[in-house]
């Protein structure tokens, strides 16, 4: 990085540290914070969408759809997260490769041969020839699906509860005005349910932030991977030998997560205040009294 970094063994103190902290693998470590933020940025809306779909399905008047919604939420919520995170990416990867192998390969060759799972080169996902970042992105993509399915189920439950919490009188009034069920949903139910859903969703967001180290379990090179890799004792085979420093790296990650959750809390406080205004809830009532 800096011009004086060419011979690390001759450096001392701060100069050594400044070179050490700007090596290529440290840059990858800093970038991996971006991976975590990217995962959060993609997963949170996706999970909310899954949850919304699940909640609406669970309330649906069509019986199969209602069953689907109920089964989805209760099944996913009833399985330990980590089992799901291990299961979904492997199942999805092999499922997609199997589908592709039926199209691109000779269908008479089975994909399972003894203990091996083999598809022909054209059906590989991603292709062996594709560059490393495609493989990485594909891994993150599988992780996003796994996270969205799991957190979507929890979100569905929260939203389902919130929809039931909207006072019946509100919906009845809308019906009295002659709104169709869809209009009631869109104009009254959904805008009002957020204030009831927010505490549950805020909780879920916190759990989602704290679940991101599971990326490491899925083989994505996230901050935990790099902290362990960089923090481990380095012998003279490396340019920057040092003893076991995992403690400091994990401390940095700890601070990162604390900052993330602390910042989220503040943002949620603001949203909560905004959503409670004018609502027939205790918080809304307190705000009305404070204003007068």
């Amino acid at each position: 990085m800096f011009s004086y970094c060419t011979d690390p063994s001759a450096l001392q103190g701060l100069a050594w540290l400044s070179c050490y902290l700007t090596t290529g693998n440290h840059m990858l470590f800093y970038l991996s914070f971006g991976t975590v933020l990217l995962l959060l940025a993609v997963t949170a809306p996706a999970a909310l969408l899954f949850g919304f779909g699940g909640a609406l399905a669970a309330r649906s008047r069509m019986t199969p759809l209602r069953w689907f919604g109920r089964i989805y939420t209760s099944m996913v919520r009833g399985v330990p997260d980590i089992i799901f995170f291990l299961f979904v990416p492997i199942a999805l990867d092999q499922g997609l490769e199997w589908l592709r192998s039926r199209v691109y390969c000779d269908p008479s060759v089975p994909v399972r041969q003894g203990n091996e799972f083999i598809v022909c080169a054209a059906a590989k996902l991603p292709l062996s020839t594709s560059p490393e970042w495609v493989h990485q992105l594909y891994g993150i993509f599988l992780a996003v699906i796994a996270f969205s399915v799991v957190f979507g189920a929890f979100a569905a439950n929260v939203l389902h509860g919130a929809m039931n919490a909207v006072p019946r009188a509100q919906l009845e009034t809308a019906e009295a005005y002659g709104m169709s069920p869809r209009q009631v949903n869109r104009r009254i139910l959904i805008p009002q349910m957020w204030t009831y859903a927010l505490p549950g969703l805020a909780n879920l967001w916190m759990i989602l932030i704290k679940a991101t180290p599971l990326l490491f379990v899925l083989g994505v090179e996230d901050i935990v991977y790099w902290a362990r890799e960089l923090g481990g004792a380095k012998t003279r085979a490396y340019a920057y030998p040092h003893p076991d420093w995992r403690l400091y790296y994990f401390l940095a990650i700890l601070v990162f997560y604390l900052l993330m959750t602390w910042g989220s809390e503040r943002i949620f406080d603001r949203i909560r205040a905004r959503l409670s205004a004018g609502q027939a809830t205790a918080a809304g009532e307190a705000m009305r009294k404070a204003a007068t």
Partner: protein
Amino acid sequence: MKKIMLAAAALALTTSMGVAQTVRIATEGAYPPYNFINDQGQVAGFEVELGNELCQRAELQCTWVKNDWDSIIPNLVSSNYDAIMAAMSINEERKQAIAFTENYLPPAPSSYVALEEGANLETGIVAVQIGTVQASHIADTQATMLEYPNIDQVFAAVRNGEADAAFGDHEVMRPFVEDSEDLIFVGEQVRLDEGIGIGVRQSDNELREKLNAAIGAMKQDGSLNELIKKHFGEDAQTYE
């Protein structure tokens, strides 16, 4: 939307490109000097240099993949990559699941490391890396075995007193012991394996033959011995 786009991109990639074969080689990246992540964040070490040379000789396109040690065989079997070069000793247990090329390193000694000379190696607590030949060996002795996912944590266990001694590949432990002021080699060295080879799927005879030919050629012209000496020192075991 993003999913659809990704899927579409993946489909487009497959249809437009021909089927040029690329061999993906997995390594652990945490086992210096065999393989490690260098300061640029890339895999480096003896096996990376050797693997690239072998691929060149066998006229294969090779790329490297990092994979944790404990899932390195299952992921080979499920075709996430095509070969393993991760200081994997050839033994009967592993031959049940995967196939090996001929060895590219002669059988290497394994050693005990402890904080003091009198450490109890027979019936004490010995730390090993999970799923290694050393772990199988300790399981057959009277000692209590503690397993860790990587070699760093094995040493950490000895330093903080969780284990009386560590047992592992001599060449991997040597730099750690020489660098440290507290760790020493104790007891006698043990020879466990049939050397280190490249792991491939049992059905992948074509790749194994190509790699075998390349390894054979490198043994023949002495370039493999030079590479071993470059990474493991002048005293390292070489081929006759």
